[in-house]
């Protein structure tokens, strides 16, 4: 796969052999630990190499999961599909999409086109539920458990 197309991305999303094994543990980002992140490698029987990056920020009340394509050029990894909760988005020429939205690679818009997904009802503060809902549309099986991130309100400022 030397160039990325929407058809390639749809095929990756539709691939039901994608699996993440083991538990997902959020790691503190930075010294103060407000934000937390994780990266989880995805194993697939048929598709290229991908992984998930997760971010949660209790200060800005935002949560995101991003499916990243890392094949074939590792230094040019591309975000091809993602969920953002708590962040509004404007589609060029189309107007605002709500604070819970997914982005998916499209040939014309690349990774800038967002839509409001009907299947995500979890708030940013429930990343475990949001993760389960995200995995369903992404056809992603997680055999372990996402550990609830731990942060303290008084650390915010």
């Amino acid at each position, binding site marked *: 796969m030397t160039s990325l197309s929407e058809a390639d991305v749809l095929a990756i999303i539709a691939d039901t052999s994608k699996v993440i094994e083991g538990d997902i543990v959020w790691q503190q980002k930075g010294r103060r630990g*407000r934000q937390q992140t994780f990266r989880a490698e995805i194993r697939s029987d048929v598709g290229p190499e991908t992984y998930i990056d997760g971010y949660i*920020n209790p200060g800005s*009340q935002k949560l*995101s999961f991003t499916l990243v394509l890392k094949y074939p050029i590792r*230094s040019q990894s591309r*975000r091809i599909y993602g969920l953002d909760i708590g962040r*509004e988005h404007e589609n060029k020429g189309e107007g605002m999409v709500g604070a819970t939205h997914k982005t998916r690679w499209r040939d014309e818009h690349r990774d800038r086109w967002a839509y409001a997904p009907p299947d995500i009802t979890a708030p940013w503060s429930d990343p475990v539920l949001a993760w389960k809902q995200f995995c369903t549309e992404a056809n992603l099986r997680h055999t372990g458990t996402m550990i609830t991130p731990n942060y303290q309100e008084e650390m915010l400022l």
Partner: protein
Amino acid sequence: MKVQELQEHLALSLPELFRCDDFGNDRFRVRTPLLFPNGDVIDVFIAKIADSFTVTDYGDAADWLDTRTTLRRRSPKQRGLIEDTCEMLGIGLEDEQMVLREVTWGSLVDSVVRIAQAEARVGDVWFTTRQAAQDVSVPRSAADGTVNEVAAWLRQRNLSVETKVEATGSSRRTWAVDFKASSPTKESLVFVLSAAGKQSARNRLYEVAAACLDLGRGQEKVEQLTFISLFDDTSDMWSQEDFDLLRLESNVARWSRPSELEELLEVPS
């Protein structure tokens, strides 16, 4: 303080496009009309603390950059751009969180605008990344970009710098070296390892290893001359084995840790 009161205060100076939401615990979010490069809306946050306010982005701009670039480390140039932006706008940077503390009611609007402006500029750092270069469809060599960054960095450190140096090894083969950098106490030949793909990375690794081996035994070797292999580790292209291989014949530095390079070059303080 009620969000309505804050909204009315902002509306005196800002268009209605700036919308306030109550986050609870005397914290508020201001949705601005500014956008990050991909269309995500820029938010600013206000916390009422005692008799003043703290205005911040809670690290949102840095988060946005991380999620859109998939990078785990920033190059010195990207870090410098972020720091320069905050310094120019008089904004504190705490662990990549932009913050203005002890803001008065009268200067709240100005503070919100400054934080929003800084977030937009930090978002523009995305245009310096390889992902952005792909999107702009301008062919760009990953190695050229890094070499140019290193050249600028070296010159800022009062070193005598020669670029595209040719050096002959004991095999009588001539090698192209990216830089010869001279400080009062040391002369160094610097090889930059930066590549867009696995295969080109492997080729570059072996080329530099061979060059260091050959030059190390070359007739032109000067006692104070040292070899530095500078890895562009802002992408996940290199492994520990790669560092260990070049450590056999050279000093190894990482571009994400410029202080290591300064030490090897013996940059005058």
